[in-house]
């Protein structure tokens, strides 16, 4: 069975459209989907009830307790035989990923097309965070905008703050941010960060959180929605140099190994941090 469309919608419904319609409709009505985990001891999770809507077959995965991991999607025919579902849909849509963030959820499902063409499903816990979409660096500020992910979005403007914490040190800086209809933007002034620079620690990392008084939760700034993994090595931001308490300090945004956004402050001219 090869699908030409294979998507997860924002309600965690798997939508499939096959290239060939089964000749016998009763075959299709009797068929089921199953998910088989990859690895040495594969587990199988059966998906109850397929729904047909137009030319699509839909399987509701929202109610199925699906452990973390990557699963092969299997087509189980009436006689119990199962075969992996192949797909030619790359399964990746920037717009759909953006829409998927807009609702609160505790589990994130993604469809993947494996290199050999098999349809896979990745299940992972979803934690609320702030998805970074744009970062600009000026002489004195870092401007960041994006959207709130996996939290209820309140229509209209909301008060919000960005909290920057100096990793393994005591510094905390708070800046006013703006949240409107689930989108955030903030301009982080860097002068205080440069002033608070601890020369004893070669790298002063400032980790960033967004918080709204109405909600109280702190949302880590991160870029997790697209399919680019390992942004720390892939994406470099411009830097700026400011006067600090004990010399000049270079500050630039960077992604951590977890694709979280932080700011890195180093002494300007020092070798540490150069070329990273």
């Amino acid at each position: 069975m090869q699908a030409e469309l294979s998507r997860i919608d924002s309600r965690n419904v798997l939508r499939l459209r096959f290239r060939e319609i089964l000749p016998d409709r009763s075959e299709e009505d009797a068929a089921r989907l199953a998910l088989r985990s990859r690895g040495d001891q594969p587990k199988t999770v059966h998906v109850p009830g397929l729904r047909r809507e137009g030319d699509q077959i839909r399987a509701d995965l929202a109610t199925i307790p699906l452990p973390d991991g990557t699963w092969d999607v299997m087509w189980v025919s009436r006689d119990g035989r199962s075969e992996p579902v192949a797909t030619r849909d790359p399964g990746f849509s920037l717009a759909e990923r953006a829409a998927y963030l807009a609702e609160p959820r505790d589990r994130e499902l993604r469809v993947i097309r494996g290199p050999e063409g098999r349809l896979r499903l990745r299940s992972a816990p979803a934690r609320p965070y702030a998805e970074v979409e744009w970062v600009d660096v000026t002489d004195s500020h870092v401007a960041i905008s994006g959207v709130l992910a996996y939290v209820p979005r309140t229509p209209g403007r909301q008060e919000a703050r960005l909290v920057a914490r100096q990793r393994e040190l005591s510094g905390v800086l708070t800046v006013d941010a703006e949240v409107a209809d689930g989108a955030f933007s903030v301009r982080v002034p860097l002068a205080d960060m440069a002033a608070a620079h601890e020369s004893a620690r070669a790298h002063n990392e400032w980790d960033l959180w967004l918080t709204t008084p109405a909600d109280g939760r702190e949302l880590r700034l991160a870029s997790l929605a697209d399919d680019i993994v390992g942004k720390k090595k892939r994406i470099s931001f411009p830097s700026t140099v400011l006067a600090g308490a004990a010399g000049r300090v270079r500050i630039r945004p960077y992604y951590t190994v977890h694709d979280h956004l932080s700011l890195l402050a180093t002494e300007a001219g020092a070798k540490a941090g150069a070329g990273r």
Partner: protein
Amino acid sequence: MKIALIIANAYGMGGTIRTVFNLAGGLVARHEVEVVSLIQHRERPFFTVPDGVALRALAPSREWAARPKQGMMARWRESRPCRGVPTSEAARNGAFNGRTEYELRRYLRETDADVVVGTRPGINMLIAQWAPERLTTIGQEHVHLGNHKPDVRAAVRRLYPRLDGLTVLTEADRTAYQEFLPVADDWLCTMPNALPPGDYPRSTQENPIIAAAGRLSPIKQYPKLLEAFAVVAREHPEWRLRIYGGGGNETELKEHITRLGLHNQATIMGRTKDLTGELAKASILAVSSRTEGFGMTIIEAFSVGVPVVSFDCPHGPREIITSGRDGLLVPDQDVEALAAGLLRLVRDGDERRRMGAEAVRSARRYDLAPVIERWEEFLNGRLAARSRGRLADRAA
């Protein structure tokens, strides 16, 4: 027939190796096929050897940390230069030394193959010099004649006419060789690389992504692509550029992205094992090269329904792309024209989809089956020409 494909190193991960394995996998359906590697530097090849294809290594190389103990003669020979290939060719590829030359001569003496195919200039030259009369010898060129160093060109002129035939990747290269060598028309054949068989994904043309692919080397001219993309990014900030490739100076390229203020929109994606899978997420492929020997990534983009906007650079793009139908050829090295070409497809989703559908049709020309038929026709033709030649010799 039995066909031996001779390659410098079948154990590595380059494009030529992938292409040769793909060809071997196609030929093995109707022939006996052996891939002969001058050197071996690891236990198993990086790419999977196709079913039914035999792999033979002539000499374990010094780069192999766990290589079995070698005899004194073997070690002495590998310290000697390979006299049968020009200096620049030996310097370019580490497979050529006195030992591999000796082992290849012995192989050619002893093999029961009907046809031996060399896959790079040095190997073509060695088989031209040492293959016994009973073997049909075919050279394969993956690089345009004009890109060879003077010493290689001189050796090509001297030695290639001794081969029974030569395949090149493009019509442009065929013309260049025809002018360079005193050979018959049917001695030379344009033989494109084929797409490996398999189920390819299909771009849905929904993502605002322009892709580019290939080593991060100066010949790909990614800085020019970034300049062209900057024009697109200003008008359509939601569009992204993804460059798939490794090697070269990645840091410098990243700094260039930052300097142009494209750090939110352009990303060096690194190498990928599933290039067609990645290209299918994009909606346009951009080619900004100084030259393209063939343009395999153009065909890979076509195979997943992605139209290509390319400089009309020598030699491959204009032989693959039909401008206006499955992509756009823009004036060579004209960055503004490249930007305009990209913008045209960025603005017009309908045209993109139409071109994407045409691209899939164009890609079929490079399916393995028709390319293998072309190979068989060429090999049969060369075998027939040899027997005609022998009859003529006897009559004379």
